[in-house]
């Protein structure tokens, strides 16, 4: 068989990065509406003509080139937005939601463990970061890691009731936890109560992320460029982690637990242990995402980590394609950027998300970019 050309994959990558930049820079509502229309047309047309398959084959055949190019395209996209504060902040939010979405992918997509408290786990990460940064001198990368770990450890408190229940009941437990978490924050004065906490800016090897980057007297780059670059690095690491989990014996074990725990246990698989693993990895990633969120927004409050935020995270994962990390980008763009850009829908955004999720579940149950069969490393 002939090796597929590398062009479709490169084109898709560059086009996606360009689309993200254009979408973020668009300031007229008709521009955004047109782009959304084009995106829907590409999606429908692509489904008919099998573009997804073409791009996938091309990317698989040239993975060694396409993967670095994709991340480079992401870096270039961020760089193109270097002077645009608000757009970079939005892009950071997209990446943070993607990191948390990667966590949900491991939990929900692979192991089948429901989690309707993802925002609460982000909150745990965010508050851990706030407390550690305000009261200790730990290096900030360590703080971010610890925030993920604390989130994973507190998540394990939920494990016992979660493992004893299934389906709707497990979902209810996570919902209850999310609400408890918020109430706990609101009544806890040490954590700022409803007013929340201030978070200092990130610092890495003496480089303060909150300082704008002065190129010369006329040109100044947004300080959000620091954060966007940092978020991209964390996103890359999280993405690699989740991809590698899926494309290994671990991914197979998680899939087996989700699809048929009885059959899996007949071959010696410990379902509970794998669910615990997946739940903890997912909460770790949510905690890291929350930690980044805290440093970027510089201020956190209980109202930032509500049940509706958890629902938004779940809808991102379902919209993008449950179990496929690639789908997180378009889904997060739709959920985070579109309402900001189309003020018309801002008021109705939850209604629209609900309609969108229902439409996707009916018309394209696999999501925007459905998950593919496992590709083990060559």
């Amino acid at each position, binding site marked *: 068989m002939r090796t597929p050309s590398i062009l479709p994959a490169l084109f898709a990558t560059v086009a996606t990065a360009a689309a993200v930049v254009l979408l973020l820079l668009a300031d007229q509502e008709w521009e955004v509406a047109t782009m959304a229309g084009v995106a829907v047309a590409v999606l429908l047309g692509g489904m008919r003509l099998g573009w997804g398959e073409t791009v996938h084959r091309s990317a698989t055949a040239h993975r060694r080139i396409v993967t670095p190019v994709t991340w480079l395209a992401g870096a270039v996209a961020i760089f193109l937005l270097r002077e645009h504060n608000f757009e970079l902040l939005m892009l950071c939010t997209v990446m943070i939601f993607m990191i948390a979405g990667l966590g949900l992918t491991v939990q929900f997509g692979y192991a089948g463990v429901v989690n309707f408290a993802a925002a609460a786990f982000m909150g745990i990460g965010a508050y851990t970061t706030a407390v550690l940064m305000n009261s200790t001198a730990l290096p900030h990368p360590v703080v971010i890691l610890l925030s993920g770990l604390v989130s994973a450890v507190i998540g394990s408190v939920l494990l016992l009731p979660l493992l004893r229940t299934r389906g709707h009941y497990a979902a209810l437990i996570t919902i209850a936890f999310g609400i408890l978490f918020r109430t706990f924050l609101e009544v806890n004065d040490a954590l700022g109560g409803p007013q929340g906490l201030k978070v200092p800016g990130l610092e890495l090897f003496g480089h303060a992320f909150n300082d704008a980057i002065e190129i010369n007297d006329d040109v100044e780059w947004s300080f959000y460029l620091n954060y966007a670059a940092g978020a991209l690095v964390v996103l890359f690491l999280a993405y690699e982690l989740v991809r590698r989990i899926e494309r290994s014996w671990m991914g197979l074990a998680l899939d087996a637990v989700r*699809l048929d725990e*009885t059959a899996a246990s*007949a*071959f*010696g698989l410990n379902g509970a242990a794998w669910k615990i693993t997946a739940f903890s990895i997912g909460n770790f990633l949510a905690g890291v995402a929350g930690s980044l969120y805290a440093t970027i927004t510089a201020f956190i409050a209980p109202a930032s980590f509500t049940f509706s935020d958890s629902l938004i995270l779940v809808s991102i994962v379902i919209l993008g394609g449950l179990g496929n990390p690639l789908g997180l980008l378009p889904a997060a763009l739709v959920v985070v950027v579109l309402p900001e850009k189309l003020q018309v829908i801002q008021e109705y955004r939850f209604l629209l998300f609900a309609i969108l999720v229902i439409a996707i579940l009916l018309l394209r149950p696999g999501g925007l970019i459905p998950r593919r069969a496992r590709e083990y490393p060559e």
Partner: protein
Amino acid sequence: MSTALLDATGLSVRFGGVRALDGLDLHVGEGEVIGLIGPNGSGKTTFFNTLTGFVFPADGRVTFAGEDITALPAREVAKRGIARTFQRLRLLLELSVFDNLMLGQHLSLDHGVWANIVARGGLRRSLEKQRETARALLRYFSDSLPDRLSEPAGSLTMIDRRRVEVCRALIRDPKLLLLDEPSAGMTPDETRELMQDLQSVKAERPALAVVLIEHDMEVIESVSHRCVVLDYGRKLCEGSYSEVSQDPAVRRAYLGVEDE
């Protein structure tokens, strides 16, 4: 008598008021093939579920290779070398044929974080080796299946799914294989073919013991060394196929023949 591999004594299982198993004794020797027959609801599948740690008996004991495994959960039983198939196939239909076979291999794979996430050279080597093992095993059962490792199990025909399920149970080289009605949903010819293929595997693994639940008496006759007939959770009779098929109680309960 062959060396004892599995010894079930006085097994009783109750579901509410129903006695699914009622003081059942069964002995399986190393390398033996036993046909387990009985009408629907006679406790055959419950017996398998009890052996494999999915159902726990109210009474009685199961020893396997000298160890008491009565109270062990399924995954611990699997570690001791008992593998099974399910009456209603339990393949992971969304996953590939290879993935399904690798579930059977689960206990032999390295699931460590280092090997799977960080340094993946070992994973690559293990994948290569496992693909070879999988192909070699499938080859006993079909000429085409070895080339279909990456296809989803859900795209296979019924007979191929059966074959994959049997291979999944065989791949880790179990000491005891429990086959729960492998002929369900298949034509008699397909069943016969499956049994012949299974016997060619068995020819190379003389120590492998098999307990087979089967309704097709011809299959039982052709493969089993010994037959056990269950009825209402009890052993109705036991012996060679010809002994069992002549037994008046069996004929009454199972073969549906009136006494003359």
